[in-house]
């Protein structure tokens, strides 16, 4: 078994998660025996009906939650908590409001004791990557939503994670900004070669980004279907192939949501 996993970036084995509601004491089954293999350098999208447990799945990979059963193997090693090798980008940006743009990006470098000058240079480099050169000394409140998310991505990239876990990072942006950020993400992914797992509820976004698109069932989430998207980047949203795959996924989603 161990031999088989060495090539994988990420393996999810029989992953289940049950929450216990604090008030009522009722059990809430969120994930049900998820099995998944993710290749290094891939860009995988997780889609599913809203509230199905996509975010929980991502948090388990990130080590922010522990599974009730099964395990998460990252590069063959079981995940026991969060770590800088697995970067997380949150929907809520989660920028430190008291740190400037530059200081947010260098956070992960500062805390491991990297000398100030070096951390600064490195952070400036990542700010350039996300196109925010010249905004170093602004505070988060002075930024638009799209800029905040770029800072958050730069902050995560700065610690050089080997996998990037993104939880609906563009969900609260307006449509135009969102499209721009999607193109930007593809660019960064291609340039850095980092493995990306991207959670979204937008089929359009999944088809635009994903090499593999994993379809989850409604809660408790199971893997229902895997769609492979072999379209070349950058993808045109009006191409027949795009529209066809989009229709296919939407069909599964509709089925999933009407199913009782």
């Amino acid at each position: 078994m161990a031999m088989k996993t060495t090539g994988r970036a990420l393996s999810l084995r029989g992953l289940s998660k049950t929450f216990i509601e604090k008030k009522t004491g009722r059990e809430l089954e969120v994930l049900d025996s998820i099995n998944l293999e993710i290749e290094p350098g891939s860009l995988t999208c997780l889609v599913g009906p809203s509230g199905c447990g996509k975010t929980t799945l991502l948090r388990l990979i990130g080590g922010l939650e522990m599974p009730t059963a099964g395990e998460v193997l990252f590069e063959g090693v079981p995940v026991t908590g969060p770590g800088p090798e697995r970067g997380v980008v949150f929907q809520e940006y989660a920028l430190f409001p008291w740190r400037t743009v530059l200081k947010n990006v260098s956070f992960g470098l500062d805390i491991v004791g990297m000398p100030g000058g070096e951390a600064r240079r490195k952070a400036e480099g990542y700010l350039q990557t996300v196109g925010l050169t010249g905004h170093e000394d602004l505070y988060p409140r002075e930024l638009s939503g799209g800029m905040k998310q770029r800072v958050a991505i730069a902050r995560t990239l700065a610690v050089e994670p080997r996998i990037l876990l993104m939880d609906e990072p563009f969900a609260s942006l307006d449509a135009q900004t969102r499209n721009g950020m999607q193109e930007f993400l593809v660019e960064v992914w291609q340039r850095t070669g980092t493995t990306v797992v991207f959670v979204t509820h937008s089929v359009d976004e999944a088809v635009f980004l994903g090499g593999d698109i994993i379809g989850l069932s409604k809660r408790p989430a199971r893997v229902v279907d895997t769609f492979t998207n072999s379209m070349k980047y950058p993808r045109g949203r009006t191409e027949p192939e795009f529209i066809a795959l989009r229709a296919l996924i939407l069909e599964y989603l509709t089925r999933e949501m009407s199913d009782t």
Partner: protein
Amino acid sequence: MSRWWKIVPPLVALALWELLAGLGWLGKTPTPVQAVRGIYELIATGLPPGYHLQGHLLASLARVFTGFAVAFVIAVPLGIAMGAWPLASVIVDPLVEAIRPIPPLAWAPLALIWFGLGLASSAFIVFLGAFFPILLNTVSGVKSVDPHLVEAARTLGARKRTILARVLVPGSMPSIITGMRIGMGIAWMTLIAAELIGVKNGYGLGYMIMTARDLARYDLLVAGMVVIGVVGFLIDWLIRLGEKRLLRWR
């Protein structure tokens, strides 16, 4: 609307006070003019004579800052611990809730036994006044830090101590400063009352107005009240200035 409008209501209040007191409608209340003359007398002659306003002010400031500093140094770390670790909260909470409702001044006789008449005694009472607002605001500040920020820090490789120092402390800073402002206000009020018991060196603003009362010098009494009010306002203004500097990110 420019800012000078802000000084109109106080001016109207002063004029009304001058008028009503001048007409004798407020009993033996001194007028603002008499109060201002009283301030001059407090500076020039002193009350009791020889004990000048400057000395009273310095003595009170020394007491209030000593008590406040001790409260700050204990309340902030304790509040952060209570906010960050539920266990600390469980242990300390009942004690805090039991002591908090007791007015600081009620401790005065005990403070006298424990610390005597000097600086320590009034500083202790000031400490009690300032401690709880700082503590409770620190606790709520830590608890109100966005959990996503803690998670973000963890995924960036931060351990517990780093999270405490780099996330929870800066995140609760606005709340801590609010606690400082409230705490300082209460400390100042408490001090004046604490000095009414008596002071060892013969100096203190509260002691000064008590003397004015004993000597039926209500002009000096009101003058002392004005000084106390102005100093309290200035201290708060300084804290707010520091807050603006420190919390530019807000």
